[in-house]
Structures are given as structure tokens and as C-alpha cells.
């Protein structure tokens, strides 16, 4: 039954380019410029989907982003399908495949529709009142609730599309390309302000661009023709950027706005390859002009939700813009003049208009007179009390309103129709304004919320500011824009504007019915199926606040975020609770204005760009030598170097042994390095480290422990005195940035009197660490002219040296307990130096080792790793490092906290060594330690912080923190695992070479 619903004379749709698409598997045709909605209507398809709760048949209601019903699953490719997209916003493209949602097996025959039959049982929030018995059945109930909830389906494969971001800074941002937006943008740009104009449609002009009506003229030409000329002039204006298909998503404080530009969704599938799908513009505007227009309201009456019930002005757009007839016997129902524009457009296009049902008393504004001239029948002071038809409206029932408008009277007129246009007046789109923190005021005469006060540099103009008549829209837009931009643009002086002005205003939030309310279904939120009855129920049950009602009934919480329903909900609440609407306030509109894909928000920060990857100068060598890498902060560190198919355990055992038996080489470049200069450098170190520094000789190194002010260990590392006023500090890999930041903070804010300068040189130096009994021999090969005798170059000292004429610093420090050296050289030569050392070490089977082996070796010596053996609750005393706390020093960061009543307790958790009775059992790091396994609850006295099998001691070793551990040396304890208990004994933390002989071996 494809009746021809297209009219041919149309300038916006290219009827020469036919596009084929699929809806619910059926192949259909439309034209370039169509939306899915207009194309479906042209194919006489009204039934699009099923509602959320009652599964009632629903069709297209609007022509824009406020659409509550016609939301579809776009595309059926597992990775490219998109749920809940509005048919009214999808631009038709070759290959589009869309399907209905929330129905099974099909939109035409939907099992879920049974809910409609049960609807009396499931009023608002019924689920809070039931499903509680028997208690353990809830899981089952919930399964079905969840199954029936949700609309579309999520993709199940990763998205193939690309998204990105752009920052944009402009003087003026104009949001909305309707008549006022265009006036504002032109005014701004012509006054040398760098201006950006965005509009969510694919072309400019708003609703005026298809307004060709005798009643609305500017300088004696139709308003649409006048505007068309204006738009043509825009291209010639410099410093004006125009972005169509761009939706303002969020308006944050400080005029920071987010706009999503659709770049490929309108293209045929084969034209999209390698293109950005959506771009998120992060806009910082000095001034913002909001010209987002207004939305038409529905009318709230029984069965106002049937397919074929469409907002009146949308019908006008479908006929005037898309050239599509929404029906052939159309009735209109209104409380304002705008429906007459629709009536006139329809009859001018040869569509028969049954009649206009108007709740107002007779009015004779120009537009009404024009309609009457065309012989359009009008039922004054009447209301539609019901609609008939199931999958499509077939007729309406009209009755007269009583004098006081509270009831309907007289006999019911039944009127056949295949489409009903409804218009409940207009709601300014103030969403962005309120998002930005702006406060609204209420205008009683036509029940609209309008922008009032704002902290930001912005204005609203046009119908989003409450101007609904052509003349006031244009005049006020011109005046406000000039005033706001402090310019004097006279392009729009003495324009001659004809406009039909509304004389008679009237509004009834919930229209009276001939049936008791309980027997009717006057829908408010069409998608969530909440009715006026639900709102009244909520009020009866004591939910007074608008937010309560909203949450209790879910009104306004559907994917249209209540664009269509909020005002009526408020109205009905105000009426029922007998408060003034202005005082009731409104719900807050939260970003985004229309739903925003995660992809657009994230942009290119996916996959390899999810987070920064930091690499050391030797990275490629490690990779080439089969290293597994460990993430340490943003760094990639060589973790271990498996040979052939060694397991991590085997590799680490081999590396550890080699390091102690002969020589090992470690890439320590990731350690933080801070160059410290200034006459107060020593004093500064005294204040930031727990130990004393003034007496450290030049050329010597010292280990330091840094605390937080709360007394807990924060970071550690070796600092070397390079000169009288010159030190270089090393920090942990993870701590580097924070330590520098913290030290700068103290210097700038607490100790500005100190003459000290800190400069990060972490990336300037590559650090090659060579340890083991043969390290000395290897270094002597690499740096022949350096005297390595213990006397000349003792442990904990440094020397400057040249390697092939390149400066470097050699430190004799050890984190393994072995005789070892650290060479720092500028990074560009790091890889080369590493290779040189490796070559030199070959005769000693020098073995590269990674972080895992490093951790094992230091554990054998009982050296801590800040962050692994400490967790922000350990003091130096707890670590049994009392020796590092200078008693002489008056103060240092965190000192005072060490003497609080809890921190001086001597039975705190303390670092100890742990040996398993069975030397082959390796404890699990994180395992808990107890003294008593019998009694419940088991008291946990501590936990294992580090644990390894030591190949050098040939037994398992562990470090742990244990309550009162210091005093418990030799104490037998237990580590209860899931299915066994491990016996352990508390020991000293140093397992290997207690006398430190190996350092000088």
C-alpha cells in the first residue's frame, strides 16, 4: 500500500538521487536529504518501536533530538551497530539498516504487549512494593526485570571507527543556526570578532528556512527567502567559522563547551573508510550566544501516544521541508496559533485537513483568519478526549470543554483520521543555559521558563529566550546582540517585518476527559510510559519534590531526558499540589544535551594512546634480547630476560645466581634524578631527609629516607655530593615526579629563604648498573684510566670519568650487596655504553637482569622497596631503621609525627625477616601472618611484603611486617593459606652476607 506521500516541488530534498535502505529487513527507498524518519513516513510507516514498560506501539512524534519514540537500532554489524538512535536524526545513507527495538519477536507482533494488559497492576514504582517474597526469589524476579529492561543492544565487537578531539578558542560562539543565530553570528564576525557558528542540522536556517507564509514577511519577501539571502552572504565573511552537523553537548563554567561534530554518519558506508567518525570540539569562548530555539509541546490526553500522533510543527516540517505528507486525512489539536501554520501548509500542499480542534475560545489572529479563508474547519473550545486505532491512529473523539475547562460536555464527535497533529505551545530550549549554572525565571502568561541570571559572559536570544513571534525574534536578537558584543551593527535597522501575533493564550496541563482518570492513559513521558496518573499517584504517596516525583515515576529519565515531558510533569504537580509553577522550580538539566558516544568523549586516547609509554635509552636492546617488560608507572622496565622458553622463575633464578657469582648488568635509567645546586643545598637536604648531610664529603654518596609530614616513609634513594653546593639526588622510579613536586613545594612555600635550585635530569642520564665479584674487572676494561682500588674509590663514593671522551659519573653504590658500580652517561650514549659494558663483560658471562631479580637480590640483603615493603603506614622505626633518624637534627619533614602517642608505641607492625620451616616453600606476597590458628576470629599480626626463593642461599626467604616483630625474633608463627597452613619463623631482615664482605670483594 505505498500511496504516494511525496510532494514534488521541494527545494531541500534531492529527488533525483534515490537511496535504498532497510527497516526491519524490508528494503525501502528515500532521497538524499531525508532523515530515516521522513523516509519512513514517506513509505507510510508509522509503527517504529515499542514503549519501555507497556510495549505499546509507538511511532514518530517529532522531527528532532527530542524524539522519545522513534528510536532504532542502526546497523546490525556486531562492531558497528548503534543502539537507541533517533530516526529523526539519522540522515539517510545508502546501505542503512535500521530495526525496531524493545520488541519480540517483531514490532508488529510483540509478546511484551501483554504488559499493557497488566498495566493496572504495574503503576509507577510498583517494583518497590513487590518481588520481596520469598526473599530468595529476588534473583529470579530480577533476571526477568533486567531482561525486559533496556532498549537497544550494545555492540559485541570493538568499534572500528576513529574519533578525535580539537581544542578551539574563539571570541564568540553562537549556538544554533536559526534566524537569530545567523543574525548574531553575522553581527559578531563583521565586527572583527573571531566567531564560530554551530548547528546540529546539516544546513542552517532553523524553522524559518521552510516558513513560506503570507503572514510572515521581511522587507516584503517571505521570511524563508529573506533568510536564504542572509545565509548566502555568510560565506563571504572572514573570521566566521560555520560548523553544521555539530551538536553542543555540554556547557561548563568558564565558557568551556563541548560540541560533537558528526563527520561520516551521513555518508554512504563505502565513503567512510579512514575518516574520523565524530570529532569532539573543546571550545573556550570569550562570549557565548545561545540561539537554540524552542521545542513544541505535546498535549496530555487519553491515548495521546498512538502511532500517527505527531507534533503539529513537525508535520509542517515534514511537508514543507522534506515534502512528506504524514497522512492524507490529518486532524490537528492545539492550544495555540502555530497549528494553523501547519494547517495552511498542509492544505497548500493539497493535504485535506479534517479540522483544527482548539481548546481556546474563538480568536482571530491573522494566521487563524488565513486558515479560515482556506476553509479549514475549527472546533473552538473543544478537546480531543480519546484516540482510536492500535498500530496506527484511525480516529479521534472530540468534545466541547465546559465553561471552566474542568470537564468536557455535550455529545462526542468521532472523526476519522490517519494522523493527528498536536501542539501544546512552545518550550524554550534553556538546557544549555541551566547546564552552565544559569538561573531560570518563570513567565506565567505562556508558562515558560526563561533565562534569568548567569555568572558567565553569555546571552540567549530568539525563541530560547522567549520570543516566539517573527518580529520580536528579529528585533530583540539584533538589539541584544549589539548590546552584548558592545558593537553597533546597523545591517538590520528599519527592517519591515510582517508577523501574525498570538492574541489568545491558554493552557491546560492535563486535559479533561469523559472517563475517570484511572481509566485513561494520558502519557507524559512516552518512552518510559509514565502517565499523568503516575504523577498523581506519586503525589498521593507523599513524594512532593519534583525530583522525587521524577525519580519515583521515571518521568523525564528516558533517552530524551524529559525534553517533551518535563513541563507537563511540573504543570500537573503544581496544579495537583496547588503551588505556583514559578515557585516549584524545575529539575536540573544535566549534560550532555543529547547523548554523546563514549568514543567521541575518549577520542584518540585508545589502544596505544590510552596512556603514555616511557622508554629508557636501552629499551630496544632489552626488547631485542627477549626481555619481558614490567609496567612501573608509565615506564616500561625490563622485568626478566628469559632464554629460550624459560619460565619467569627459571630466568630469575639464573639471573640472580649469575649476579652474585660473576657479574650482572641492570638498566637503572628510570630512577628519578634531581640536580640540586645552591649555597643552602646541604641545609635543604637536612630538612627533607631523616639523616644528616652537612658533613658528607664531596665525592661521597649517602642513602636517604624521606618521610611525609605524617611520619610515614615516602621515598628513598642515594644522594651524591658533587661539590660544595652541588648534589645529585636519586628517587624511586615511581616517586620521581612527586618527590620533585613536593620538594619544589617546600622550597617555594615554606622555605623561600633557602638558596636552592632543583632541576630534573632524570631523562638526561642513562644509568648502567654493574654488580658482582667481576664488576671491577669489567669497569676497568670500560674505563681503563679510572683507579678502582678500594682506597682510591671506596664504596659509597663517586668519580667523574671519560668514556671515549664522553663525560660520565661513576658511582660505587650497591642495591644488591655486591661490589657494584653505576655509570651515569648522557642518554644518547646509554644504549652504546650498555653494549660496550656487555661486550667487556662477555668473558665473565655478564648477565643482564631485570627488576624481578633486582628485587630478589636486595631482599637477600634486607633492603626495602618503598611501596612494596612500605604501604604508607610504616615509619623508619617500624622498618628497624632507627639508625637513619638523626637525633641531633632539630627538625625534618615528618619528624614531629614520629612522637605521637600511636607512632611511639613499640608494638607497632615492624619489618622482619621470615623463614619457612620448609625451605622449599615460597610464601605468597600478601599472605597474612598469625600466632594462633585455633581461636576465631584469627588475629592477623602482619603480612608478607616480599618473598622469593633465593638461589644463593638455596632456600625461601621473605620480608614481612609483624606486630611487635622487633621483639619476636625466633618466634614461630603461621601463615594460613586457603587449604594449608605454613609454619614460619621470624628472623633478622638480612639473610645474606651480614658482615657486608661482598661489597669490597
Amino acid at each position, binding site marked *: 500500500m505505498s500511496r504516494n506521500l511525496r510532494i514534488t516541488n521541494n527545494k531541500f530534498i534531492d529527488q533525483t538521487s534515490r537511496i535504498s535502505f532497510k527497516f526491519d529487513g524490508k528494503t525501502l527507498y528515500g532521497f538524499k536529504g531525508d532523515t530515516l524518519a521522513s523516509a519512513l513516513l514517506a513509505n507510510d510507516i508509522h509503527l517504529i518501536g515499542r514503549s519501555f514498560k507497556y510495549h505499546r506501539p509507538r511511532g514518530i512524534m517529532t522531527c528532532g533530538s527530542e524524539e522519545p519514540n522513534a528510536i532504532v537500532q542502526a546497523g546490525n554489524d556486531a562492531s558497528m551497530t548503534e543502539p537507541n538512535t533517533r530516526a529523526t536524526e539519522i540522515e539517510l545513507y545508502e546501505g542503512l539498516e535500521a530495526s525496531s527495538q524493545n520488541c519480540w519477536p517483531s514490532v508488529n507482533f510483540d509478546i511484551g504487549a501483554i504488559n499493557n494488559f497488566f498495566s493496572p497492576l504495574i503503576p509507577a514504582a510498583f517494583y518497590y512494593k513487590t518481588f520481596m517474597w520469598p526473599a530468595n526469589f529476588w534473583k529470579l524476579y530480577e533476571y526477568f526485570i533486567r531482561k525486559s529492561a533496556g532498549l537497544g543492544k550494545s555492540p559485541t565487537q570493538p568499534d572500528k571507527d576513529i574519533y578525535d578531539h580539537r581544542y578551539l578558542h574563539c571570541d564568540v560562539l553562537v549556538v544554533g543556526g536559526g534566524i537569530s543565530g545567523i543574525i548574531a553570528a553575522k553581527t559578531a564576525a563583521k565586527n572583527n570578532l573571531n566567531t564560530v557558528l554551530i548547528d546540529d542540522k546539516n544546513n542552517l536556517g532553523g524553522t524559518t528556512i521552510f516558513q513560506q507564509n503570507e503572514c510572515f514577511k521581511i522587507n516584503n519577501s517571505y521570511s524563508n527567502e529573506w533568510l536564504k539571502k542572509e545565509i548566502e552572504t555568510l560565506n563571504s565573511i572572514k573570521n566566521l567559522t560555520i560548523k553544521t552537523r555539530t551538536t553542543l553537548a555540554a556547557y561548563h563554567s568558564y565558557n568551556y563547551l563541548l560540541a560533537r561534530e558528526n563527520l561520516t554518519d551521513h555518508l554512504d558506508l563505502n565513503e567512510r573508510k579512514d575518516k574520523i567518525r565524530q570529532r569532539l570540539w573543546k571550545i573556550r569562548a570569550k562570549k557565548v550566544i545561545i540561539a537554540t530555539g524552542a521545542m513544541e509541546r505535546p498535549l496530555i490526553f487519553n491515548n495521546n501516544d498512538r502511532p500517527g500522533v505527531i507534533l503539529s510543527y513537525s508535520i509542517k516540517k515534514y511537508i514543507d521541508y522534506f515534502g512528506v505528507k504524514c497522512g492524507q486525512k490529518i486532524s490537528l489539536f492545539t492550544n495555540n496559533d502555530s497549528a494553523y501554520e501547519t494547517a495552511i501548509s498542509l492544505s497548500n500542499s493539497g493535504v485535506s485537513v479534517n479540522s483544527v480542534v482548539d481548546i481556546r475560545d474563538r480568536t482571530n489572529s491573522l494566521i487563524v483568519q488565513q486558515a479560515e479563508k482556506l476553509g479549514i474547519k475549527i472546533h473552538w473550545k473543544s478537546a480531543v478526549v480519546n484516540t482510536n486505532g492500535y498500530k496506527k491512529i484511525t480516529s479521534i473523539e472530540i468534545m466541547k470543554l465546559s465553561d471552566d475547562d474542568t470537564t468536557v460536555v455535550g455529545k462526542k464527535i468521532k472523526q476519522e483520521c490517519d494522523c493527528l497533529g498536536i501542539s501544546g505551545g512552545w518550550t524554550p530550549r534553556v538546557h544549555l543555559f541551566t547546564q552552565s549554572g544559569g538561573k531560570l525565571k518563570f513567565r506565567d502568561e505562556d508558562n515558560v521558563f526563561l533565562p534569568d541570571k548567569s555568572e558567565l559572559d553569555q546571552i540567549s536570544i530568539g525563541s530560547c529566550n522567549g520570543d516566539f513571534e517573527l518580529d520580536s525574534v528579529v528585533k530583540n536578537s539584533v538589539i541584544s546582540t549589539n548590546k552584548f558584543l558592545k558593537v553597533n551593527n546597523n545591517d538590520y535597522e528599519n527592517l519591515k517585518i510582517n508577523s501574525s501575533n498570538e492574541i489568545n493564550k491558554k493552557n491546560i496541563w492535563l486535559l479533561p476527559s469523559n472517563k475517570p482518570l484511572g481509566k485513561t492513559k494520558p502519557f507524559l513521558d512516552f518512552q518510559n510510559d509514565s502517565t499523568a496518573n503516575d504523577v498523581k499517584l506519586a503525589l498521593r504517596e507523599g513524594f512532593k519534590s519534583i525530583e522525587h516525583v521524577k525519580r519515583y515515576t521515571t518521568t523525564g529519565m528516558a533517552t530524551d531526558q524529559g525534553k517533551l515531558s518535563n513541563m507537563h510533569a511540573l504543570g500537573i504537580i503544581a496544579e495537583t499540589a496547588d503551588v505556583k509553577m514559578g515557585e516549584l522550580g524545575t529539575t536540573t538539566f544535566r549534560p550532555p544535551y543529547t547523548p554523546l558516544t563514549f568514543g567521541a568523549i575518549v577520542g584518540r586516547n585508545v589502544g596505544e594512546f590510552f*596512556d603514555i609509554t616511557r622508554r629508557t635509552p636501552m629499551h630496544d636492546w632489552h626488547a631485542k634480547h627477549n626481555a619481558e617488560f614490567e609496567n612501573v608507572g608509565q615506564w616500561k622496565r625490563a622485568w626478566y630476560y628469559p632464554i629460550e622458553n624459560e619460565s619467569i622463575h627459571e630466568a630469575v633464578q639464573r639471573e640472580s645466581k649469575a649476579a652474585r657469582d660473576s657479574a650482572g648488568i641492570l638498566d637503572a635509567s628510570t630512577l628519578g634524578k634531581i640536580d640540586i645546586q645552591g649555597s643552602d643545598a646541604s641545609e635543604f637536604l637536612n630538612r627533607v631527609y631523616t639523616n644528616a648531610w652537612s658533613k658528607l664529603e664531596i665525592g661521597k654518596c649517602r642513602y636517604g629516607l624521606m618521610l611525609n609530614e605524617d611520619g610515614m616513609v615516602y621515598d628513598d634513594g642515594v644522594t651524591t655530593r658533587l661539590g660544595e653546593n652541588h648534589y645529585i639526588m636519586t628517587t624511586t622510579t615511581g616517586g620521581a615526579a612527586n618527590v620533585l613536586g613536593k620538594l619544589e613545594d617546600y622550597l617555594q612555600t615554606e622555605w623561600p629563604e633557602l638558596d636552592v635550585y632543583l632541576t630534573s635530569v632524570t631523562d638526561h642520564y642513562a644509568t648502567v648498573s654493574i654488580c658482582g665479584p667481576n664488576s671491577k674487572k669489567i669497569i676497568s676494561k670500560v674505563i681503563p684510566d679510572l683507579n678502582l682500588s678500594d682506597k682510591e674509590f671506596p664504596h659509597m663514593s663517586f668519580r667523574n670519568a671519560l668514556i671515549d671522551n664522553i663525560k660520565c659519573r661513576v658511582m660505587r653504590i650497591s642495591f644488591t650487596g655486591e661490589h657494584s658500580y653505576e655509570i651515569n652517561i648522557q642518554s644518547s650514549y646509554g644504549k652504546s655504553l650498555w653494549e660496550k659494558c656487555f661486550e667487556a663483560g662477555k668473558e665473565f658471562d655478564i648477565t643482564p637482569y631485570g627488576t624481578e631479580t633486582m628485587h630478589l637480590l636486595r631482599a637477600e640483603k634486607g633492603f626495602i622497596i618503598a611501596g612494596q615493603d612500605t604501604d604508607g603506614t610504616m615509619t623508619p622505626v617500624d622498618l628497624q631503621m632507627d639508625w637513619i633518624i638523626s637525633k641531633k637534627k632539630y627538625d625534618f619533614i615528618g619528624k614531629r609525627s614520629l612522637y*605521637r602517642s600511636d607512632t611511639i608505641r613499640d608494638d607497632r607492625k615492624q619489618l622482619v625477616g621470615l623463614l619457612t620451616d620448609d625451605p622449599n616453600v615460597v610464601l605468597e606476597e600478601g599472605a597474612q601472618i598469625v600466632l594462633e590458628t585455633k581461636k576465631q576470629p584469627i588475629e592477623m599480626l602482619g603480612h608478607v611484603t616480599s618473598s622469593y626463593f633465593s638461589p644463593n642461599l638455596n632456600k625461601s626467604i621473605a620480608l614481612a611486617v609483624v606486630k611487635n616483630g622487633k621483639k619476636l625474633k625466633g618466634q614461630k608463627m603461621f601463615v594460613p*593459606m586457603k587449604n594449608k597452613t605454613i609454619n614460619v619463623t621470624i628472623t633478622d631482615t638480612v639473610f645474606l652476607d651480614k658482615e657486608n664482605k661482598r661489597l669490597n670483594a
Partner: protein
Amino acid sequence: MKNKYSIFSLIKNAFSYHEYWQRAWRDPEPKKEYDAIIIGGGGHGLATAFYLAKKHNMKNIAVVEKSWIGGGNTGRNTTIIRSNYLWDASAGLYDHALKIWESLSQELNYNVMFSQRGVMNLAHNLQDVRDLKRRTHANRLNGIDAVWLNTEQVKKFCPIINTSPNIRYPVLGGTLQKRAGTARHDAVAWGYARGADEMGVDIIQNCEVKGIKRKGDSVEGIETTKGFIKSKKIGVVAAGHSSVIAKMVDLKLPLESKPLQALVSEPVKPIIDTVVMSNAVHAYVSQSDKGELVIGAGTDAYVSYTQRGSHDVVEGTLKAILELYPIFSRMKMLRQWGGIVDICPDASPIISKTHIKGLYFNCGWGTGGFKATPGSGDLFAHTIANDEPHKLNADFNINRFVSGDLVDEHGAAAVAH
């Protein structure tokens, strides 16, 4: 009992078009005096009133709320409920709450939709693994169900997670608490309100506290926008606004109130049937009964009472979501909002007496207060009724910040939840 909720009451009322449902709670004007006043009509405050009336037989009490009940963090959080905390004190507190959750719908005759769909915490680096294993061991010994899962088990439990070893921070494993899950936030506030009201508690909305009247070192009552209300016991449960109330008695708290953001996607058919949290990449997600993906973002670093946060926090979180669930790239953010959370330096709450007699504070829940609602109410009620803490909240006193005996849960609570 006022009309009991059940399928039968629904059927009965259906015949009268639901015209005769009773009010869930009254809308009383404040009396001259109460035995106790709770400041703050969120979940914690209403629960406190409920248990004061139910377990301590204090019926003459009021809850004063400056706006509408459940409109603060109760109505703004991502409803995650779990008890797999590290320290004994926290484990005790949160598991006490979890136990109450398990029968709360029946206790309140109000379906709070407590859904024990499990909560999984992912590990992305070796220290994560150590920390989470440490927690799991501690949980086990504290009788809290929590198990360690290796990567394969993680994948098995939640197949849509990207467990590829090639992502920037691969999933190295995780912990699972099966008893954990989510609940319907509004229902919790409304259920407690209805229950408390039924026992005679006055719930007074749109009543802002302007001052606290003291006599010597004890409290006498509160100045409100509805006049002076007398009471010798005042329990403050004002979450983000705790410091504002404390200021009225020149009390300084170790709190900072910061915006915490959350967002939901458009509703879709069931796609993820558990709660997954990740500290390292900072994201957590679950799916609501309505089908929306509920995603929690982080807090901003600055104090703000605006219930708005910075966009980069949301961007950062969604970035992590797409790293773990690349299939969500075409899902759409429907709504984004912020709450004001009051954060303690040790990321643990305060449920405590103060040096002012009759003044009690329940605050500092930071980003994770919802899960504790029933337990917090119960223990705070105990503390107010007996003027001394229950053993389960003894460690959560204000004095710990002086002694240094903190309950440092950062390891366990680094991500907003």
C-alpha cells in the same frame, strides 16, 4: 502497620485505580523538642533514625533535611555494595552493613533491589597483585567471602573484559566478592524514611539548619529555617556539608569536600551482569536494572560544593572503560552528574562523639558511603543512644587523627566507589 506492600496490595489497589495508597511518610511540622535530632536526610541519616526508633526505643526523634530526602549522595552514587576491605576495623564495619543489606528489603517491606551480582577488583600491575592478594587473605581470615581470580578466571566471570596481554595495562588477575553487588539508591532512602515515619519519626524536609545552640560544653538544640528545635542529642550526617555544620560550633574536621562525578549510558539489554572495578586504570562499571551502564568517575583535587566537576575526570574514566571494554565505544553517555563527598586523610569514615556533649558526627565516607548505609545507621544509632561507640565503630573516632592511629584504606579505596 500501614498498608503492607505486596503483590496482593498491588492487585487490591488496582481495582481502585491506585487511588487509596497511603503516604509513604508524613510531612510534619517540627515539634518544640525531640529526644534526638538527626541533621541530614540521606540514607545514613534516615537509617540512623530508623534504628534509634527500632533498636533503642527512641521514638521522639526528628530528621531534618535542608532539601528533599535522599537527594544528596544517596541519590547520586553508583550504588556499589561490598565489604572486601583490608583492615579489620573496616572489614568489620562494612561486612556488618553487608549482612543487613541481605535482608533489608524484608526488614523495611520495601524492595531495595539488593542485587548480589558480585564485585570484581582488577589488578593491572605487580603491586596491584600484591595488594589485592593481601586483601583477599585478610578478607578470608575475617570471614569475608573474597577470592583471587587469575586472568582466565576473570575473563570467564566477565567475558566482555579485554584481557589481552597486549593492552597498555594488561589484566593480571583480580579479586571477586560474590556477596557484593548493587542496590537501588532511591529505594534505600525511601524505605528507611517510610519505616522510620511509621515508628513516629518526624521527617522534616526543606528545613535548613542555621545554627547549633550550646550551653557550656553541651548542645541544646538547632536553629532552623523552621525555627528553633530543642534536643540534647544531635547527630550530624551531612556528608559533603559536614564541615559547614561543624563550623557552627567552631569545630574543625579532617575533611575536604570534593566533587565526585558519575554517569550513565543509554539503557541497553543486559550486557554485563556484575560490577567490575579497577584502581590502576581508574574505572568501574555495572549495569542498572533499567539497562543503563552505571559508571563512576573520580573526584577532582580541589574543594567544591557545586555538584559539578571537571570534564577531564569524565574523559579519563571513559578512556579507561574503553581500554577494558572496547565494545562500549558506540554506547552513549545519557546523563552526567556530580556529588559532594567528604574525604578523610585516611579514606576511612568518622562515626564518633565529639568533645561537645550530645553532639555526634557521622562523616568522612568519601567516595564509598552508600555501601555502608545500613551499618552506618545502626552503629551511629548505637553511639547516640548509649553515648559511646559500638565496638565496630570504636576505631573510627575523631581522635585517631591526633594519636596517629589511622585506618588507612588508601590501598583498598583508591578508586572512587
